[in-house]
C-alpha cells in the first residue's frame, strides 16, 4: 500500500517537472496566439533552437553556463523579431490555413537548418547540477528536476509580474484584448507583435535548455512543440493562466496515465494520453477551463 502511494507521488512529481516545462512552452504559444491570432506550429523548433544554441555556446565556445544561457536568450529574442518581421508580417490578413501552413513550413525549415548545423545524433550538456538524488519523504528527486521545477516556476511568476505591472506587458494585454482600442491608445501594434514573438522565443528556449539538461538534445525535442496543443486546449487557447494550469495538468496527467496504463496497453501511453484527453475536452468543453467562448454573428 505504502509502495503504491509512493509510486503515485513519484509520478506526480515527475509530472510536475515535465508540466512546468509544458507550462513555459504553452505560455509562449498562447502569447503569440493571443496577440497575433497565429497558431504557431514552430514552437517546438524555437525550443530546439534555444537548446542547441546554448549547447553550442557552452561546449564549443567554452562559455560558462550562466553566460551562454543569457546569450541564448538574446539570440532567441533576435530570432523571434526576425521571424515576425520577415515571414509572419506579410501574412497578416491571410486565411487561417495559410497562416497555419506557413508556421508548419517554418518549422520544417528551422528543423532542417538545425540538422544541417548540428547533425542528428543526441548531444548532452556537460553536468551542471550534482547528480546525487535528494531523499524527501521516501521519494527520490533528481536535483536537476528540483532546479528545473523551481526555475520554471520562477519564470512563470516573472512573466506574470511582467504582464501585470510593466508598461510593455500592459500594452500587450491591451493588444490581445482589442487591436483597434490598442491602436487608438497609441500603442504600436507592429512592435507588440514583434515583442510577442521575441518573448515567446525566449520562453521556449528556456524550456529547451531545461529539457536539454534533463534528457539531452536531439531532433525529437521539436515534438514538445506539438505536446503544447493539449495544454492550451485544456486551459483555453487565449488564456495565459490557462496555459500554465494546462501545462501542469497535462504533465501530471500523462505521467499518471503512463505509469498506470503502460503495463496494460503496452508502452507509449504517455505520448498519446494528452491527445485522447484533448479530443474528449474538445467534445465536452471546447473552449477550455479559462478560454473565452467564441460568439459569432452574421
Amino acid at each position, binding site marked *: 500500500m505504502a509502495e503504491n502511494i509512493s509510486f503515485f507521488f513519484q509520478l506526480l512529481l515527475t509530472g510536475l517537472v515535465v508540466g512546468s516545462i509544458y507550462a513555459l512552452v504553452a505560455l509562449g504559444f498562447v502569447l503569440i496566439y493571443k496577440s497575433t491570432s497565429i497558431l504557431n506550429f514552430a514552437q517546438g523548433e524555437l525550443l530546439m533552437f534555444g537548446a542547441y544554441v546554448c549547447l553550442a555556446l557552452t561546449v564549443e565556445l567554452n562559455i560558462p553556463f550562466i553566460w551562454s544561457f543569457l546569450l541564448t536568450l538574446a539570440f532567441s529574442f533576435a530570432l523571434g523579431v526576425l521571424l515576425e518581421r520577415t515571414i509572419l508580417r506579410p501574412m497578416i490578413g491571410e486565411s487561417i490555413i495559410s497562416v497555419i501552413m506557413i508556421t508548419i513550413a517554418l518549422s520544417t525549415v528551422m528543423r532542417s*537548418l538545425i540538422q544541417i548545423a548540428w547533425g542528428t545524433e543526441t548531444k548532452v550538456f556537460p553536468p551542471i547540477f550534482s547528480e546525487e538524488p535528494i531523499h524527501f519523504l521516501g521519494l527520490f528527486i533528481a536535483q536537476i528536476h528540483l532546479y528545473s521545477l523551481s526555475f520554471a516556476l520562477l519564470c512563470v511568476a516573472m512573466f506574470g509580474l511582467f504582464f501585470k505591472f510593466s508598461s510593455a506587458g500592459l500594452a500587450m494585454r491591451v493588444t490581445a484584448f482589442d487591436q483597434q482600442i490598442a491602436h487608438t491608445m497609441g500603442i504600436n501594434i507592429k512592435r507588440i507583435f514583434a515583442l510577442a514573438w521575441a518573448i515567446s522565443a525566449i520562453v521556449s528556449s528556456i524550456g529547451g535548455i531545461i529539457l536539454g539538461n534533463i534528457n539531452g538534445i536531439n531532433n525529437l525535442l521539436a515534438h514538445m512543440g506539438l505536446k503544447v*496543443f493539449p495544454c492550451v486546449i485544456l486551459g483555453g487557447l487565449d488564456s495565459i493562466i490557462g496555459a500554465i494550469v494546462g501545462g501542469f495538468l497535462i504533465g501530471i496527467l500523462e505521467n499518471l496515465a503512463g505509469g498506470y496504463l503502460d503495463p496494460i496497453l503496452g*508502452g507509449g501511453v504517455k505520448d498519446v494520453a494528452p491527445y485522447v484527453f*484533448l479530443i474528449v475536452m474538445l467534445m465536452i468543453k471546447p473552449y477550455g477551463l479559462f478560454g473565452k467562448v467564441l460568439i459569432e454573428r452574421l
Partner: protein
Amino acid sequence: MPCGLFHNRYRTDERIFQTIWVRSWLTVFGIFVLLMPFFVSDYIIYVTNTIFIFIVGAIGLNILTGFTGQISIGHGAFAAVGAYTSAILTTKLGISFWIALPIAGFFTALIGMIFGIPSLRVKGLYLVIATLAAQFIIEYTIIHWESLTNGITGIFVPSPELFGFVFNTDKKFYYLLLAFAVSAVASGRNIFRTRVGRAFIAIRDRDIAAELVGISLFKYKLLAFAISSFYAGIAGCLWGYYTNVITPEHFTIVLSIDYLAMIIVGGLGSIIGTIFGVIFITILPELLTTIGLILKGTFGQITTLLSAIKGLIFGMSIILFLVFEPEGLAEIWRRVRAYWKLWPFSY
C-alpha cells in the same frame, strides 16, 4: 466569329470542358498519358504512379479543406486506416483486393466521421488541433495493436490480381492507378455540380449563413469528413498494394503535412490545382535526389545532408508560395491561359 465564350443554352454552360480547344488538347494529353509507359524509364513510371496515388488522397483533402473549409492535419493517418484495413482483410481473411478496397474506403470514412464530430462544436484553429490529435491517436493505435497490425514491422501485402492477371510491376500498375486517379478527379469535380457539393461550398463561405438557408451542418460536415476520408482510405489502400509492404513510418504527420502542402501549393478549392500541387510536391524531392546523386561525384558526402536540404527546400517553397502566390499553381495556370486566350491582343 464571336470574340469570347457565349452560352445560348444551359447545357453548354454546365459543361466541364467548354471549348473545342480544351477538348482537343485534353484528348492529346489523354493519348500521351496512355502511351507514356511505352517510351519512358521504369523510374519515371514509378514516380508517375505515386503521383496517381497522391492525386486520389489530395482530392479527398481538398474536398474537405478547400471546398468545405474544415482544415485537417490528420489526412495521413486516415490513409493509414485504409491501408491497414485492406491489408488485414487480405492477409488475415483472404479477401481479394477488389472487395477489400471498397471496404477499406468505407471503414476509413467511418473513422473520419468519428474524428469529425468535434467539427460540429469547434472550427478553424480548434478543429486543426482536433485533427492533429486524430493523427497521433491513430498512429499510436497502429503501432501498439501488434496482434492486428504487426506494429512497426508492418504487413506484407500481396499484389492484386484480376482473372489471373497479376499487377506486380510498375507498368502493370500504371493503368490500374491511372484509372483510379481519373475516377477520383472526375468524381471530385462532379461532386460540386450536385446539391451536396453546393452545400459544402456554402458551409465554407459562411457556415452560419448556410445553416440559415436550411443546410444541416451536422449532416454535411460529417459527410465532408466521410467523403474526404473515403478518398484517403482508397489512396492508402492503393499505396499498400503498390509498395507491397506497409509500415507506420509512411503514415506519420509528415504525410499529412505533405498532403496539406499539395493542396495549398496547388490551390485550395481547385481540382486542377490539386493535380498540379501533387505533381510539384512529389517531383520536388525526386529532383533533389537526382541532383544530389549528380553532385555526389563532385562534392562527396552530400547525401548525409540531403534529407535536411530536402526539408529546407520543401519548407522554403511553401513559404514562398504562400507569400507570393497564395492562390497557388491553379492561379498561375489561369493567368497563363488567360494570356494565351487573348494573344496577341492582350490589352
